[in-house]
């Protein structure tokens, strides 16, 4: 069953804005120029691509690839080329982060629910889950993936950014001469600089603000992504538990910034660097400085 996602198309002073909801986020496609037909085609293609990725990789949808993998019970599951590339990328991220970025750590969510309450899980709950985490135990090649019993995969850490990049790639193919901005809830990719003023001016949510205040950002080209969520935490005995979990200990990373925003060539690079920065805890700024990228770190 495939429900067609609805979208709206709005004409603005010098561009079109396509709008829809997907991946639990408001999604925006800004298309430079005044060609309504082209804007319509681009937005439709973006919706289709976004929906395709969501249906294939969402953990919350029944009978998709993720569910087949996560309920495989130790048996190999056939995968396609795209999934192989995503797994290879996740593998690189695991290596580059010395095991801090681990897409098998999603099971910890069974214990941690960051709802602003003081429900800290017990040590027993955590230690029961730790044996079900560990990327090196997962075997995959170009055709198959095999998870140990009880293991689960979750592409949540890279899925939205990956979708932004895939959609941006399609937008660029459809409109190679004009700028298109893809914005999925603050994860952004711009295909090329705009014809006239060069940059896009967009409002993004300020993670430091408890209100819905936006800050205005100018972006000419490349990707931008934010990790961290000021509203997802637990508070007990005046100690704040952020939602970034260390897969090795099962506990939140201590002294992590509330949010990190990174600008890089591609959205998924930005997202990864932002997430890896959070995983460095108190060393986040030092890590970001070493990466020689533009970043905004909020504590």
């Amino acid at each position: 069953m495939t429900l067609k996602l609805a979208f709206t198309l709005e004409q603005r002073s010098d561009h079109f804005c396509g709008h829809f909801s997907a991946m639990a986020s408001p999604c925006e496609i800004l298309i430079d120029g005044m060609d309504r037909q082209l804007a319509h085609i681009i937005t439709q293609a973006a919706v289709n691509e976004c929906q395709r990725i969501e249906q294939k990789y969402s953990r919350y949808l029944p009978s998709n690839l993720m569910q087949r993998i996560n309920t495989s019970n130790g048996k190999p599951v056939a995968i396609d080329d795209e999934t192989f590339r995503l797994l290879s990328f996740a593998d690189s991220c695991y290596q580059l982060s010395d095991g801090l970025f681990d897409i098998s750590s999603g099971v910890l969510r069974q214990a941690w629910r960051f709802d602003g309450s003081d429900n800290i899980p017990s040590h027993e709950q955590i230690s029961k889950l730790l044996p079900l985490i560990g990327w090196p135990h997962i075997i995959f090649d170009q055709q198959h993936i095999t998870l140990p019993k009880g293991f689960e995969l979750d592409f949540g850490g890279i899925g939205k950014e990956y979708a932004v990049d895939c959609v941006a790639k399609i937008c660029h193919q459809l409109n190679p001469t004009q700028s298109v901005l893809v914005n999925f809830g603050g994860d952004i990719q711009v295909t090329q600089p705009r014809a006239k003023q060069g940059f896009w001016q967009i409002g993004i949510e300020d993670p430091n603000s408890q209100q819905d205040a936006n800050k205005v950002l100018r972006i000419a080209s490349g990707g931008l992504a934010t990790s961290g969520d000021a509203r997802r935490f637990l508070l007990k005995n005046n100690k704040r538990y952020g939602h970034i979990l260390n897969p090795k200990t099962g506990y939140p990373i201590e002294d992590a910034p509330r949010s990190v925003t990174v600008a890089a060539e591609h959205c998924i690079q930005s997202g990864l660097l932002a997430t890896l920065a959070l995983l460095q805890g108190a060393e986040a700024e030092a890590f970001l400085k070493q990466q020689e990228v533009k970043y905004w770190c909020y504590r």
Partner: protein
Amino acid sequence: MQLTKKGNISAALAAATCSLLGLQAHAEVADNSWQIDTALLYYGESDRVQLAEAVINANKDFGDEHIFNGKLVIDTLTGASATGAVAQNNVQTFTRPSGNGQYDIVAGDTPLDDTFKDTRVQLDAQWTQPLWENVRGSTGVHLSKEYDYLSLAVNGSLAKDFNQKNTTLSVGLSYAFDSIDPEGGRPVALSKMVLNNDQFASEEAYQQAFDATRLPGSDDKTTADVLIGLTQVINRRLLMQFNYSFSSVDGYQTDPFKMLSNVDQQGITQNLVYESRPDTRTRHNIYWQSKYAMDNAIADVSYRFSTDDWKIDSHTFDSRLRFKLSENTYIQPHFRYYQQSAAEFYRPFLLDGDPLPQYASADYRLGEMTAYTLGFKYGIDMGNGEELAFRLEYYQQDPKNNGFDQPGALQQLDLFPSIKAVIAQVSYRF
């Protein structure tokens, strides 16, 4: 923390991103560098002119479509060129264009002047950039210098894109100034060639007689061109270009090395007369080019019609078909056909006793002719934007008599010999 161990992971992450998204890493680096095209060309006519030419063309995109193009051409020309005089059944003697010395042409041969030896240097520079939305401007300079010839030109053009860049309209202007200063001076129009058959009392007397047929100093001409072009994308595979150009030349256009034979009723040359051409020429060209992309080939076909007030009309048909042989090689056959009518003042010879016309030239290049070129090019894509290509072509000109009766002895002589040439070229792009 592992900071010191891992350090900067951006590069590794960028590489992982490229393979995830199926992108080519560092693809943009090549675009910003210079693209250099080089070529060596040999052009050789059997028994006549040989030309060796070297080209270096440099192209750079400085970003935002600000493009510079520079070109350097050097060529050297040697060999013999037809003078316009007709063949005879006896040995003919000619005074060299400089006045210093003579040369003989054996019976039955088309008279050729073998004193040609020249080196030419050409420099071009062109700058193109967007001016307003959908409008590009381009401007350039051109210089060509030989021992006895200088050509300077400036050009400027505007191009505007319409219809989602499917239509481009362009207007361009070019203005050229040419100056010629041949050794020995320019001949006086239609003056008789002075031959030193020891009839002069002294060397000074000969020199005086020769100088009387000469104009001292240099002369020049100017060329103004207007070019209006329309480029249209027809569909995903087909692209067309239409040009109209108008060209107005004003000044010295006579070839100081060309002459006409003055023959009697028996076809025997009585004397030789230096040619004379009008000093204005107005020309219209229309040009159509089409490129069609097939799955494994690209066809490039063009047609040009040209007409001018010298009454020369010409038709040029040119076609290239690039076949992809493999992922990185192609072969490209080339066929060109050319046909022109004679200038109204063209005559293969003058008849002794007839009144001298105001203008006359026996230069076969102004006479009626057809020509064709047949050849092929083989190209190898070496990767990293490098390409190596070889071109080999055969060019033949067949001059025709456009209705002149050949008196007496001239009937048995070939006054309109074909010219056969080979073109060989090696080019390398990096």
